């Protein structure tokens, strides 16, 4: 089992003919993901690599292929439209990889997606992978193996680091979700924790947060009040100076709010195991699984 994506995922790639879109589509197909369609306006009726039909819009892709999940690789100024189009066309899960989407665009996209009952992961995220089942986004397939751990993170390469260490230690994953580093994203920690709690295959959760905002504190509350499964957490940005955006648009300490210290405290108060270093996940998770 897994969360959000699995063997039944039928994926449409928005921006399939672009540099990133084409590269990662090939990787997804190689991984065994069921890529049923691509969308690039103006390239309808062509095919991608002779195998995947391309459509001018998501509506046609859904009608002709039954796609139920979309991944977005379009440039930032077009990303809001791409998300809304996918949701309006009836896609249930939209994963937006694009980095640099203006936050004011997201203030319009977020309620649009919610009101239609769809799920958005991202933007500015590495996507979702359910090892040995499907890969939607850019998380490298070879660093994952199937197993009992759910992984959720605001980061990309830091997630790879931790997942790779788990894998090398023989600890596999049900699903890894990168929720993205932006101030407003479609899916938060709680959405993922709640899904992992319901997923019978997931036995423990690894959570990687970072400075900025209060998502981690709310996640800690959720763990304390609603979760039976063990959670191990990490916060990046202990050494980040206040008021500076640390790469991710959302990774910024505003005034005195959003510091690593307050997040770690919230984790401890909620009984979440705290990984001080990324490598500490292996032993902490192993202990929770036994």
């Amino acid at each position: 089992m897994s969360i959000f994506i699995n063997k039944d995922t039928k994926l449409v790639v928005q921006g399939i003919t672009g540099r990133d879109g084409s590269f990662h589509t090939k990787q997804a197909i190689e991984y065994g993901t069921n890529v049923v369609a691509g969308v690039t306006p103006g390239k309808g009726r062509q095919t991608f690599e002779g195998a995947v039909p391309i459509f001018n819009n998501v509506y046609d892709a859904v009608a002709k292929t039954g796609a139920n999940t979309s991944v977005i690789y379009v440039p930032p100024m077009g990303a809001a439209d791409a998300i809304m189009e996918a949701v309006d066309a009836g896609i249930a899960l939209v994963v937006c990889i694009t980095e640099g989407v203006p936050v004011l665009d997201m203030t319009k996209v977020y309620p649009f997606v919610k009101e239609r009952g769809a799920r958005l992961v991202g933007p500015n995220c590495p996507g979702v992978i359910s090892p040995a089942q499907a890969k939607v986004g850019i998380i490298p397939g070879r660093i994952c193996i199937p197993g009992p751990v759910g992984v959720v993170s605001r980061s990309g390469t830091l997630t790879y680091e931790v997942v790779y260490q788990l894998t090398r230690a023989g600890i596999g994953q049900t699903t890894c979700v990168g929720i993205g580093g932006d101030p407003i994203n479609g899916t938060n920690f709680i959405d993922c924790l709640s899904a992992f709690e319901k997923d019978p295959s997931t036995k423990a959760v690894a959570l990687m947060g970072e400075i900025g905002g209060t998502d981690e504190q709310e996640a800690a509350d959720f763990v304390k009040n609603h979760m039976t499964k063990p959670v191990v957490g990490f916060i990046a940005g202990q050494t980040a100076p206040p008021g500076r955006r640390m790469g991710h648009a959302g990774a910024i300490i505003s005034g005195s709010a959003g510091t690593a210290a307050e997040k770690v405290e919230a984790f401890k108060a909620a009984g979440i195991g705290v990984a001080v270093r990324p490598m500490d996940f292996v032993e902490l998770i192993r202990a929770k699984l036994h």
Partner: protein
Amino acid sequence: MNIHEYQAKELLHGFGVPIPNGKIATTPAEAEAIAKEFGVAVMVKAQVHAGGRGKAGGVKFCKTPADAREKATAILGMQIKGLTVEKVLVTVAADIGSEAYVGIIVDRQRKKPVFMVSAAGGIDIEQVAAQTPEKILYLPVDTRYGLRGYEAMRMGFFLYRDVKLAKQAAKIMQQLYSAFMASGCSLAEINPLVATPAGELIAVDGKMVIDDNELDRHAEIEALRDVSSEAASEVDARNCNLTFIKLDGNVGCVVNGAGLAMATMDLVKYYGGEPANFLDIGGSSNPEKVVNALRIITADANVKCILFNIFGGITRTDDVANGIVTATKANPLKVPIVIRLTGTNEEIAMKILTDNGFSASADMDEAVKKAVATAKGGKAA
């Protein structure tokens, strides 16, 4: 991106917000001439990207042009939170009846812009929020519908009993909201919004922070960027498409990905060292980025050791290895380098590095420990 007070006020004025007459001076003589032209008492205000300008002595009331010259002499060149004041705004001093706070900020929890208004203006709003939250009205706006008239009126009457003032305030809320949306702001505030004894509202101070992600579609806002107020190395890095933040330590970090970059800095600290910077070379494997990253980091004389931490997902580690070799051939390193890389094409990368006299490890923990020790001991790695 931050813009200066005078720029924010000009933007707001473009949407109809009343502001006091003002002009920019870069010399005391200019400040005096502007004060003379206005012919009334003025304020001389440091234009620098830092809060607490008033407390630092960067904002002064001046009765005469000679006074303005004297105050400008003191303020120009002054350091406020490490930034040198290069410009002052000389602006007509408003008659103050009462002061209100009006701000709008993108709220992460509500996922909307939220207005914050308070009749307790002129001071730190975070303090008001912490001590007397009942004095603030929070009003979230659904950007799909914009700020509705009734919402603007609600805020107007929250601030003023007087109907005329309340209506003026409502109009200013609409203008502020329009400026906020049109400029791609993450924050815009008027503090204080002054009611004069004559019953007119005027924005005496203004602040705007622009979402960096908006700059591609707002060339006119990007043009307001004041590079003199940023560290030269950060400007250089931005022009090379690198995300770089200078810090005070001596371990120069080159990492791919923001989360891993933060985690690397934290680990440096954990092992008793101090990071010299945050640097994310991003996801692409362009060797040119590595060359630029090394140039920027080695320009910092504090750096005693360079630490590479690369997790190759999309980034090909052999590209990074080639970048290191190319960069160091052109400009031999004067400080030791510790390289950690793992992931995509790791074997090829390791071979490139060893063939060129570098050693590399695949373990993050080990590499960070070594970099910290090297920076402390100054020994070659």
